[in-house]
Structure formats: structure tokens, C-alpha cells
């Protein structure tokens, strides 16, 4: 019967392969799980780097703005300029602003915004921007204008002029918003003019634009580098996994094969016993001894136990056959006891009749018949009892069959219908005693199945192949093929070992002679045992066991 090949039925070698592969895959999956973590780490690194660079740029911008404001703090002339003035000081301030922006690449522009504002809210402003962006029109030069500031920028400048303090939140908002001067980082700082007699006098606000292109380029480069690193690491890890996978599976395959080979060989050898014929038992035992355990303790132990069992099994088998033969003959004699007793009861009457006269007549005939019958029974018994081993020779099986039939039908009830049909049979090679015993086993088993008014029969005829075909049938209850088959395999289900070992022993003897024994249900009930013996070979041979 075919069963689906589930994992539990896999061989140890296959299981080890599967488990090792699964383990490797699990490890590979765990390693692959590091990719999201790696991505997170790189993201974190990028964010930290961006923050650090932004902080560094802002610190740099603040430092540059501070340096400019420190320089502006020494321009006492700032305190004299007015919206309407057009003095040398005005020109000097404009020139200074132009110089700072033009000759310092990092400074995008400067505005100096006076704290005071006019009625329209405008403030005096000196300004110059480089305006390098293509979409911006370059300034003709530094300007002195009255400028209005709007929105957040206005709030920021107002807070600086009132508190001389930069509100970084508003400054951040201004920087995040659009700027008409172009993209740059803006710094607003209060401008104090230092006077010896008055100290630091607040003048206004410096608005300084710092170039951020450099930072953007660095961020872009860093982003590209991170993408490259991520891709390279992916490739390297995948490649490593592939190589390690191939290497690991190759090594595992080699090791598993090496380690499981003794057990596999032992399993194959042991499994061969299932389909082995009795004559192949020695060969099987020899194969078992040849299994190389490679020093594996488990294999050595199993091998030793199997060898001991293999050595013991034939002896046990022989003892079983001998015991079964004796039991079978004992059963035959026990069944014939009523007949013997009946004969014994007839003897005194017959002896009296013979004593009264006549050595001839019906009594003499009856006595002669009884003697003949007893002689036949004893002859049959002596043939089957005296030499269970038997001599192997070219034999005619017919006498042996008839002996077995006579013994088996001895003492059967009168209601039983016994049919025998013996055709002329060709000679076969074998043991007459064993074959007789085999047929007796079958007949005795059949008699056990026989109902009170049943039918028992035997038919011997030449087989089409030139051998001998023997059929023993018995009526009775309908039997299933499985049940019939189980008669031949009494140890198939250790929980249901049947009482008689006749059929399997008969099968063993048939097999010993190169023949076979089959059992099939008989219509309308009962069973038919078919025993076939091969034709006589041209060259006689010795038995295999």
C-alpha cells in the first residue's frame, strides 16, 4: 500500500538535509532582516549628518555675521547718517558693504538697517546683494534706500530694535520662507556703535546673507554616497549569502552523506529481509556482517543485535517446524483415536468368531481389513514421523500425498464429503517426507476449518509447466482474500497470531522446493490452497537451506 511521503517518513539523511537547509535559510532571513536596520541606521546617520552640517553652517553664518557686526560697531559715522544725507560717510558705508559682499564669496549680501523708521514705517538701509542666481537681475551697485519690511521680517526687525535681541524663532521662520534676495541663509544682528563716553550705542540691524550652495552640494554628495553604500552593502551581503549558502549546503551534503552512510546501508540491508526468500537468509546475514559501521556506536550495536537475531532465527524456525510437525501428527492421531477404539472394540468379537472356527469367512476378511488399515496408518505415520529432515531425491509425490490424505481424513465424521483425485504426476526433486508433511499441514488446517457436514477435497495433477499442481479445498464460511492471505503470514500482525502455523510452514516447504503456495477464497464458501512444484530440472540440485 502506498502512503504519502510525509516528512516523518523521510530518511535520516533527507531530514538532516532539510533541517540543515531550513536552518541556513532561517539564518539567512535573520541576516536579511538587518537590511531594514541598516537602512534605519543610514537614515539616522544621514539625519545626524544633515543636522550637524546645518548646525555647522549656522554657526559659521553667525560667526561671519558677528565679524561684520564687530567691524560695523567701529563706524561712528553711522550715528550721523540720516535718510536725507549724502555725505562722504554715506558713500564710505556703501563702499564698505560692496567690498564685503564682492570680495567674500560666502557673503551673498549685506543690509545695514537703521533702527529708526519714518512715518511710513520705512527704514534707512544700506544694501548690496551679489544676486548670482540666473533668474535674478544683478544689482548695479551698493544702494542707500528707504526700505519697508513686511511680514515676519518686519516683526523680527521690530523686536531687535526694541529689545536688541534676536528672536531665533522668527529668524528661523524668515529663513524657511521665500526670500526676494535669492536662496541664502539670513542672519539678523543688532548693530551697536561703540563710543568711549557712552558705551555701546544701539544703531540698528545688520542683515547678512550667507551662501548655502556649498552645504547643499555637500548634502547632495552625501546622499549619493549613502545610496552607493547602501547598494554596495546589499550586493555584498547577498553575494556573501549566496557563496556561504552554496558552501554550507555542499559541506552539509558531504558531511550528512558521510555520517548517515553506515546507518543507511544497515537500513537497506535490514530492509532487504522483507522481500528475501528463505534460501537468501544466509546471504542476508552475510550482507549484514559486511556493513561498515565506520565506528559509529549506534550502528555497531544495531548490527550486533541483528546478527544475533539472524543467527538465532533459522534455529528457531527449524524448532518451530519440528514442533509443528509433531503437533500436526499428534492432532491426526487424536482425531483417529475413535476409529482405533472402534476397531479395538470389534477385535474381541472377531477373535471369538475366528476361535470358534474358520480361519476364513467374513470375520477373517474383516480382521484382515482392519490389520491392513492399521498397517496403512502405522506405515503412513512412520513415513511422516521417522524422517522429518527427509532425503532429497527424484521422487514421485503421489504416495506422500495419499498418505497425508489418508491420515488427514482419518476419523472424519460420516457426514463429511471427502473427495480425492490423483492424476499421474511427473517426478519432482525434493524431500518426499517434507512434501507429505506440507500437504498434511494443509489438510489438517483445512479439516479444522471444515463444518460438520462439509466438503474436503484434494486434487493432484501435472501443472502446465511440467511440475505438480496440488489443490486442497474445503467448504465453509465465505472467506476474504485478506483473511486467506493472513493464513500464510501469521506474524504480519503480532497482536493476532493465529493458532496454526500449518499454511506458512507448507508455504515454506513449497518455497524450499522452488514452488509456491497460494490461498484463495472458494465459491460459495471456504478456501482453496494451491501448491505448485516446479518441474524436474535436468541437473539435480541441492536444497538452498
Amino acid at each position, binding site marked *: 500500500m502506498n502512503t504519502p511521503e510525509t516528512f516523518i517518513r523521510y530518511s535520516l539523511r533527507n531530514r538532516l538535509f532539510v533541517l540543515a537547509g531550513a536552518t541556513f535559510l532561517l539564518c539567512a532571513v535573520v541576516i536579511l532582516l538587518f537590511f531594514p536596520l541598516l537602512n534605519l541606521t543610514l537614515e539616522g546617520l544621514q539625519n545626524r549628518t544633515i543636522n550637524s552640517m546645518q548646525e555647522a553652517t549656522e554657526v559659521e553664518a553667525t560667526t561671519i555675521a558677528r565679524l561684520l557686526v564687530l567691524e560695523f*560697531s567701529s563706524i561712528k559715522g553711522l550715528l550721523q547718517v540720516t535718510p536725507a544725507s549724502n555725505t562722504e560717510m554715506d558713500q564710505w558705508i556703501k563702499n564698505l558693504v560692496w567690498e564685503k559682499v564682492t570680495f567674500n564669496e560666502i557673503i551673498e549680501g549685506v543690509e545695514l538697517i537703521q*533702527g529708526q523708521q519714518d512715518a511710513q514705517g520705512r527704514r534707512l538701509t544700506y544694501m548690496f546683494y551679489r544676486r548670482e542666481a540666473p533668474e535674478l537681475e544683478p544689482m548695479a551697485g551698493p544702494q542707500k534706500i528707504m526700505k519697508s519690511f513686511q511680514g515676519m521680517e518686519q516683526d523680527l526687525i521690530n523686536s531687535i530694535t526694541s529689545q536688541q535681541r534676536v528672536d531665533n524663532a522668527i529668524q528661523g521662520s524668515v529663513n524657511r520662507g521665500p526670500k526676494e534676495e535669492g536662496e541664502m541663509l539670513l542672519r539678523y544682528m*543688532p548693530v551697536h556703535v561703540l563710543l568711549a563716553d557712552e558705551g555701546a550705542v544701539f544703531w540698528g540691524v545688520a542683515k547678512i546673507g550667507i551662501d548655502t550652495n556649498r552645504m547643499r552640494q555637500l548634502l547632495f554628495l552625501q546622499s549619493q554616497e549613502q545610496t552607493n553604500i547602501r547598494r554596495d552593502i546589499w550586493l555584498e551581503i547577498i553575494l556573501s549569502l549566496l557563496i556561504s549558502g552554496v558552501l554550507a549546503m555542499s559541506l552539509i551534503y558531504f558531511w550528512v552523506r558521510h555520517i548517515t552512510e553506515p546507518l543507511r546501508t544497515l537500513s537497506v540491508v535490514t530492509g532487504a529481509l522483507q522481500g528475501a526468500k528463505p534460501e537468501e537468509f544466509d546471504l542476508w546475514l552475510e550482507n549484514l556482517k559486511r556493513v561498515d559501521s565506520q565506528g559509529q556506536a549506534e550502528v555497531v550495536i544495531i548490527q550486533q543485535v541483528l546478527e544475533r537475531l539472524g543467527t538465532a532465527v533459522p534455529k528457531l524456525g527449524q524448532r518451530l517446524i519440528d514442533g509443528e510437525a509433531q503437533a500436526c501428527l499428534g492432532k491426526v492421531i487424536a482425531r483417529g483415536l475413535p476409529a482405533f477404539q472402534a476397531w479395538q472394540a470389534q477385535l474381541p468379537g472377531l477373535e471369538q468368531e475366528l476361535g470358534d472356527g474358520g480361519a476364513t469367512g467374513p470375520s477373517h476378511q474383516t480382521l484382515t481389513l482392519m490389520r491392513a488399515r492399521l498397517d496403512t496408518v502405522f506405515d503412513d505415520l512412520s513415513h511422516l514421523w521417522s524422517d522429518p529432515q527427509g532425503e532429497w531425491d527424484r521422487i514421485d509425490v503421489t504416495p506422500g500425498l495419499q498418505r497425508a490424505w489418508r491420515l488427514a481424513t482419518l476419523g472424519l465424521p460420516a457426514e463429511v464429503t471427502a473427495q480425492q483425485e490423483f492424476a499421474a504426476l511427473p517426478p519432482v526433486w525434493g524431500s518426499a517426507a517434507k512434501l507429505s508433511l506440507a500437504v498434511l499441514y494443509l489438510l489438517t488446517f483445512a479439516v479444522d476449518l471444515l463444518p460438520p457436514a462439509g466438503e474436503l477435497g484434494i486434487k493432484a495433477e501435472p501443472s502446465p509447466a511440467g511440475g505438480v499442481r496440488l489443490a486442497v479445498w474445503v467448504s465453509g464460511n465465505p472467506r476474504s482474500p485478506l483473511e486467506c492471505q493472513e493464513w500464510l503470514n501469521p506474524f504480519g500482525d503480532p497482536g493476532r497470531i493465529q493458532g496454526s502455523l500449518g499454511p506458512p510452514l507448507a508455504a515454506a516447504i513449497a518455497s524450499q522446493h522452488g514452488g509456491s503456495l497460494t490461498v484463495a477464497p472458494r465459491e460459495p464458501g471456504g478456501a482453496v490452497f494451491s501448491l505448485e512444484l516446479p518441474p524436474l530440472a535436468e541437473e539435480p540440485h541441492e536444497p538452498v537451506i
Partner: protein
Amino acid sequence: MITPRLRPKITVPRLTRMVWALLLLPLLGCGPSPDASPPRAITFTFDAPSRELIRLLAEKGTSAAYKDFDRNFKGIQVPESLLPYEPFVLGLSTESKIPAVLLLDAPWVQRYGVAGWLFELERTQVFDRSELVPAVAEAFSVSLAHITGWKGKQLVAVPTNIKGNILFYRRDILKRYNLAPPRTWEELRAICRKVLPQEKSLKYGLLIHSTNTLNDFYPILWGFGGRVNNDAGQFVLPQKNNADPFVAALRELIAMQGSIMPGPGALPQFDPGGSLRQAFYQGQTLFMINWSTRLKDLSDLIAKGQGQPPGSLTGVSQVGVVPIPAQAGHPHRYSNIGSFGWAVNRFSVTDPVVIEHAKQFIGVVAGEQFQLLAAETMGQVPALIRALEKVTNKEVLQVYHDTFAQKDMVMRPRPHSRRINNVLEKALDAALFGRQTPEAALAGAIAELKKDQTF
């Protein structure tokens, strides 16, 4: 024979340990990398008196903090010529991180604090305000509501001592006439009218500085209920409730000129530095308005005292101190605080380490040992309550108990703006020297200051 079972109680823990060891093996060396950057010492503004006290304490060897001071803290020597330009306004207004800790005069604490340049000290647990004498702690606190949203005044600097102008008087003379020191100007005038005619050695009833007169005038103005700036630093003198007291206080001084105070003609003789305390020491005046530290100076003069004219002081016990009088009916008497305090630059606080270092620094330069030594050697009144409790210097204790510990005493910083002070000083001079009436002088000053829109 049955094979014995494995013994799990021994085998499993051993296996477990091995597995743990293998699992932990990759973690070896995976801890945080050691910080490669060395700890940076914080910077502070260097001043000679503090430096001298730290040197003395280091020599005493009582504390490792003073021995290792230079290693832990780096002083910035500010060029003398730069100080008039107020360089730290420039630095802090441009968010410079340097210096991390700076020593500020009380008016500048107000100025820097209101601008949001100073780090709040109490809520951030840098310093516990309750350790300070309340009057001086209040003078070093500002409202940061417009920056932090916290209500009330916040401590932004830790003073190293209590210094302010007070009224010195001749205790021996008042005792002789069985008179109590004055609390109001009327009482002072009454005492002078009674004592001066009988004490021929006394040339004056009251002396105030003839230069930088404004420092002496501010407590008088506050005692009349007037202010120049409000707590937020805004210029409020033009308001009537401030202008009128200004005129009244000035009139009070002018009214005493000639009879109690020197007249315009005699004022220039007190221009030289130290001339005021010299006159008091020589017994020329009954009262004097001067800085609280002058008691130590008088004590030193008395100690040196040989060859001085008759009537000069012979003992410190002859000197008494009280708060500067106020207008009758005014609940408080005032002192123009002259103390310095250590403040933390808000822009320098970039991480908790800076706060911790600043805390350590303030603990060293404004600590108990430091203030005790300053009290014993320099006659400075400690600002720390627990230092005050251990002071043995009698003059220091006298100044504290008789002036700064008085319940009606309020210590207030003068306006920080030198332009305001310069303009008001000129107005004061014009009035005291009789060149203008008080009203005209004040009107002129206000007109001049209004030109500057930053006020």
C-alpha cells in the same frame, strides 16, 4: 543494562552559559566610543579682586577647587581701554558663546537680563536664591516673562557681596545729643539745625559726591517715589509721577546747599577722589552719603591716624551707618546697589556640561569661603546668608545690620544707559551749581534724551 539519563541540572546551566557567552561575544567592544574631545574649561571675565581672593584661598589650601581653579576655568583678561566701550554688549547681542560666565555690575545685570542674554539660575538649579540676602537677590533678578513665559522675577546673577550707598553719620555726636539717626530728610535737616550751631568743628551737615553725583542722587530720587527707568528698562522719567519727584528731590538738595551742604562754590573742593571720606574722617561733616565699603576705608584711616587735625575720628565706634533718608511718608529707603554678580551667558549653554561647569564656577567665586575671606580682608558684606552668619568683622556686621538688613531697605540698580546717566548728571550739575532751576534742568535733559529714539 539501561543507559543512565543525562543530568540536566548540571548540563543545561553549563550549556546556557556557553550560549550566553557566544551571544555576548559579538557585543564585546560594541559600547559607545570614548569621547575623543577633551573637556573644555569654561571662560569667564577676569577681575583682579576675585583673582586675589582665589590666590589667597589656594594658598590656604582648604579646598581643591581653588587650587585647580586655573586648570578648570579660563579667565579672559579684558583690556582696560576697551571697558568703556562695553564690549560684552557687542558680544552677547551677536550671540557669542564667550565668555560663558561674566562678572556684571548690577545695572548691567538688568540690561543683559531683560535682553534675554543671561541664563536663569534658580529654576535651572545653578543657584538657590534662598541662600542670598533677599534685598540683594531681588536686585539681581529680572522679569523674563517676554522670553521664557515665566511670571515674576528670575535670578540671573549671583552677587559676591552687598555694596550700596548709605548714610554715614557721627554716632558719637548724635549720642551726645541723644538723637536717633534720621529716617527722613526732615529729620536730617532738624538734626543738623540742632547740632551744627553747637559743634563748631563741623563745617557741614551733609556731604555728597560732587562728581558722579547721580549715584548719590538716585536713592534720594527713589525715596521721593521717582523712577528713571521701569523694571522692564523703559525710560519713564518724562512721566509726571517721575518727573515731579525728580524735581522735589533736587529741590531738597538745593534747599540744603549753603546751610547743611556745601554751596555751589564749595563743591569743587570735593572733586578729588577720596576727599569726601577724608572730610568725614577729619570731622568736618555730620552726615555723608557714600558707598558702604567706605567704613573699611575709614577704619583704615583711623588705624593710620597719626598727625591728623584735631576733631578727627579716633575710633570706628564714632561712625554710624543707616539707609539714605526718604521723603516723609515714603515706606522705603533705598540704596543704589554697587555690587557685582556672576551671570551665565545664555548663548554659551549648549549642553548640560556647561551648566554644570558654570555651577561649579559660581560655587567657587561666590561661595562661602570666598565671601568670608572678602569680608574679613576687604570689609565686603557677604551676600550669602550662611557666610554672614560666620562673619567676625564688626564693621561688616554693623553695615549689614544697620543698613542692608533694615526692613524698609530696598536695593535698586541705577539705569544702565550711560547716555541717560551722562545727560542727567549734566542736569544735576546745572541745578546744583545754580545754572538752571531744577525744572529747567530736567526739561532740558528729557528733551535731549527724547532725541534718541532708542529710549
